[in-house]
C-alpha cells in the first residue's frame, strides 16, 4: 500500500493530490500538470475514437466504391468489344446471306466488299473465302494466302459447325497474332458448306481496351481459357504469352477479386465476353491509391491536428486557470485561518492581560493608599526630621503607581476592546478631530501634516470613539517615528464602490521587515529604550478595532524612506444592516 502511495507521489498525475511533502509551488505545478493530462485525455480520446471510426467507415465506403467501379469498368470494356464484334458478325452474316460461293470467289467482287467493310470496321486486315475442302479460294488483303489449306485448322472446323464464329487469337500462316470472324453457308449446288472469313489484328482489341483506361486502372487485357494472352498486357506481356488466372467466371458473371498490396487494396475484375473464347481481365488500384483518398486523408489529418492543437491550447489554459483558482482559494483560506489565528491569539492574550490587570490593580491600590496615608501623616508632622525626603520618596512611589495604573487600564482596554456603539461616521471629520489634538505636538516637532481628503466621502458605520483611537494611535506613532523635521501625508479617498481608505504616510526612518511582521502583535514595541515608553498595545488595539468594524489595516515600510499605514473600511450601504440602538 505504501509502495503504491509512493509510486503515486512520483506519478505526474497523482503528485498534485498526494504530494503533501512537496513545496506549495511544486504541488500546484503538479496539480496543473495533472489537470492538463486528465482533461487532455478526456478531450482527445473521444475525438480520436470518433475520427478513427469515421476514417475506417469512409475507407470501407471507398473500397465498396472501388469494387463497384472495377465491375463497372469491366462491364463497360466488355460491352465495347461485344458491340464491335456483333456489328462485324452482322456484316459478315449479311455478306454470306447475300452472295453465293461463286460470287465471292470472284476476286473483284470480294475486293469491293472488303473495301466497303473496312470503311465501317476498323482493324479489318483481310477478307477471304474458303471452300468446303479447306482451301482458300479467294483472298483480299496484305498477305499471299490464296490456295492455303485450312482443313486442319481448328477455326475452320468450328466455323463449319456453327453459323458464325469468333476464333481465339492465333498466328496462322501469316505468323502475326490475329483472330477471325467466320461464317459458313451451304452451297446448294454441291450441298457442302463453305466459309467466309474476316481477319482482325490484335491491336484492334488493344485499342478498344485502351478506351477503358481510367486513373485507377492498372492493366486490362484478354485471355482465353487456356491462359494465353489474347491482347497485349501492360505487365504480363504481348498477345500469345501465358498468364495464370486462378478463378474463372461462368457465363456473363463479373468476378471481383480483392487483395492487399502493402497498405493499398487492389481489385481484379474478370468477365467472359459472350460468344467468344475470351475472358476480359481488368486490374485496378484500390481507393488508397486514388487522389480523392489522399485529399480526404490530408484533410482529416489537418482537421485532427487543428483540433488537437485547439484542444491542447484550451486545456492548457484551463488547467492553469483552474490550478490558479485552487491556489487563490487555498491562499484565501490560509489567510482567513491566519487572521483567525491572529484574532484568537489577541483574544487569548487579551483575557490573560485582563486577568493580570485585575490581579495587579488590588495590590497597586493598597500600595497607593499606604503611600498616600504616609504622605498624609508626614504632611501633618511639620517637625518630622526627614519630612521633605520622605515626601519626595512617597511622591515617586505614587508616580510609579500612576504609571502602573496606566498600563493596567490599557491592558483592560485591550481586553475589552471597548464596547462599540455603531453610528454613521464621516472619516474626514474624525481625522480633523484627531488632528486638533495632535497638531500642536506636531508643530512643536516641526512636522508638517499634509492633508489630501476627498470631498463627499461616503459615510461608514463605526464607533466614533474607537475610530478616533485608531487614527490617534497611527498618527501618534507617525509623529513619534519622525521625531523632528518631517512630513505626514494623510489621504482619504473612495477606493471602489464598496470601500473607502485612509493612507497615513510618514517620512520617518522606516521599519525593518523583521519588525514589520510583528507590528500588530500585542506587547510588541520599538519604544523600549526611549523616553516615551510604549506598552506595545496601541497597534494591537488599532488592529482589533479596525477588524471589528469590518475593515482592514495594512502597513508597508522602507528603511530610510518611511512607513505607510493603509486603513480600509466598508462603505455604509443603506439597509445592509440594522442601525445600532444607541447610534447618534
Amino acid at each position, binding site marked *: 500500500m505504501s509502495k503504491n502511495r509512493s509510486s503515486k507521489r512520483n506519478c505526474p498525475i497523482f503528485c498534485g493530490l498526494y504530494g503533501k511533502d512537496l513545496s506549495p509551488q511544486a504541488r500546484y505545478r503538479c496539480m496543473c500538470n495533472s489537470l492538463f493530462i486528465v482533461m487532455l485525455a478526456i478531450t482527445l480520446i473521444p475525438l480520436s475514437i470518433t475520427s478513427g471510426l469515421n476514417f475506417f467507415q469512409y475507407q470501407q465506403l471507398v473500397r465498396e466504391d472501388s469494387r463497384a467501379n472495377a465491375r463497372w469498368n469491366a462491364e463497360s470494356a466488355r460491352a465495347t468489344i461485344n458491340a464491335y464484334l456483333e456489328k462485324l458478325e452482322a456484316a459478315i452474316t449479311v455478306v454470306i446471306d447475300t452472295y453465293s460461293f461463286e460470287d465471292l470467289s470472284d476476286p473483284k467482287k470480294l475486293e469491293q466488299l472488303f473495301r466497303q467493310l473496312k470503311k465501317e470496321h476498323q482493324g479489318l486486315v483481310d477478307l477471304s473465302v474458303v471452300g468446303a475442302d479447306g482451301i482458300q479460294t479467294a483472298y483480299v488483303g496484305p498477305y499471299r494466302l490464296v490456295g492455303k489449306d485450312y482443313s486442319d485448322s481448328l477455326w475452320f472446323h468450328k466455323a463449319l459447325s456453327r453459323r458464325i464464329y469468333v476464333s481465339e487469337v492465333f498466328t496462322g500462316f501469316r505468323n502475326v497474332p490475329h483472330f477471325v470472324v467466320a461464317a459458313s453457308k451451304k452451297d446448294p449446288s454441291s450441298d457442302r458448306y463453305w466459309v467466309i472469313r474476316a481477319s482482325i489484328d490484335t491491336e484492334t482489341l488493344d485499342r478498344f481496351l485502351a478506351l477503358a483506361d481510367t486513373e485507377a486502372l492498372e492493366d486490362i487485357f484478354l485471355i482465353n481459357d487456356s491462359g494465353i494472352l489474347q491482347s497485349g498486357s501492360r505487365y504480363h506481356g504481348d498477345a500469345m504469352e501465358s498468364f495464370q488466372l486462378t478463378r474463372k467466371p461462368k457465363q456473363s458473371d463479373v468476378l471481383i477479386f480483392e487483395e492487399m498490396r502493402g497498405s493499398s487494396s487492389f481489385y481484379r475484375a474478370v468477365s467472359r465476353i459472350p460468344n467468344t473464347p475470351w475472358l476480359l481481365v481488368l486490374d485496378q488500384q484500390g481507393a488508397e491509391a486514388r487522389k480523392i483518398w489522399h485529399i480526404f486523408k490530408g484533410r482529416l489529418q489537418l482537421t485532427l491536428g487543428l483540433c488537437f492543437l485547439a484542444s491542447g491550447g484550451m486545456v492548457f489554459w484551463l488547467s492553469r486557470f483552474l490550478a490558479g483558482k485552487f491556489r487563490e482559494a487555498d491562499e484565501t483560506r490560509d489567510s482567513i485561518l491566519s487572521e483567525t489565528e491572529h484574532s484568537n491569539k489577541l483574544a487569548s492574550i487579551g483575557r490573560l492581560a485582563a486577568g493580570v490587570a485585575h490581579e495587579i490593580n488590588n495590590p497597586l491600590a493598597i500600595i497607593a493608599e499606604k503611600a498616600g*496615608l504616609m504622605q*498624609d501623616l508626614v504632611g501633618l508632622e511639620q517637625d518630622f526630621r526627614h519630612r521633605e525626603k520622605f515626601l519626595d520618596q512617597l511622591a515617586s512611589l505614587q508616580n510609579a503607581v500612576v504609571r502602573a495604573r496606566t498600563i493596567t*487600564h490599557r491592558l483592560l482596554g485591550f481586553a475589552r476592546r471597548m464596547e462599540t456603539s455603531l453610528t454613521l461616521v464621516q472619516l474626514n471629520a474624525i481625522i480633523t478631530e484627531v488632528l486638533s489634538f495632535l497638531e500642536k505636538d506636531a508643530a512643536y516637532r516641526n512636522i508638517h501634516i499634509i492633508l489630501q481628503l476627498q470631498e463627499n466621502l461616503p459615510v461608514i458605520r463605526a464607533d466614533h470613539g474607537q475610530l478616533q483611537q485608531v487614527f490617534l494611535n497611527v498618527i501618534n506613532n507617525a509623529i513619534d517615528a519622525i521625531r523632528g523635521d518631517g512630513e505626514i501625508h494623510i489621504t482619504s479617498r473612495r477606493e471602489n464602490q464598496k470601500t473607502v481608505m485612509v493612507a497615513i504616510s510618514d517620512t520617518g526612518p522606516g521599519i525593518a521587515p523583521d519588525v514589520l511582521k510583528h507590528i500588530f502583535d500585542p506587547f510588541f514595541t520599538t519604544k523600549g529604550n526611549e523616553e516615551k515608553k510604549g506598552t506595545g498595545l496601541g497597534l494591537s488595539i488599532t488592529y482589533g478595532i479596525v477588524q471589528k468594524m469590518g475593515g482592514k489595516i495594512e502597513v508597508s515600510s522602507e528603511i530610510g524612506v518611511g512607513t505607510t499605514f493603509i486603513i480600509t473600511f466598508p462603505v455604509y450601504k443603506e439597509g445592509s444592516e440594522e442601525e445600532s440602538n444607541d447610534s447618534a
Partner: protein
Amino acid sequence: MTAHRILIVDDELDFGTTLAERLELRGYAAKAVSGAQEAMGALADNWRPDVVLLDLMMPGVDGLATLDLIKQHDPKIQVIILTGHGSTESGILGMQRGLFDYIMKPVDIGELIARINEAGAQ
C-alpha cells in the same frame, strides 16, 4: 459642608482600613468592612453611611448582590463601586440597580473625594 459618613466594603481589608484612615484625616467619618455580611451588620447598628465604597469581586456575596442588599435596606444611600475588576457590563448592571458611580482602582484620593462629595450631595 457636612462631612459625610463613608462605609468601605472591600475584602482587601488592608486597603479598606488605610483608605478609611486617609478619609478620616480629611474629616470624613469612615469605616472599613471586609464583606457584605459585615456591611449589613454596620447598617443594622444604626451607623448609616451617606456613601458606600463597594468592591465588586468579593468572596461569598459579590459587589452587585451587596449593592442590592444596601439599596433594599436604604435606597437613599449612594454607592460607588471601587474595583480592580472593572468591566463595562458590571458598570451598566450596577447603574441599572441604582449605582452612583464606577471607579477603577487605584484611584487618586482627590478624585475619589470629589466623587464622594458628589454622591453625598445627592
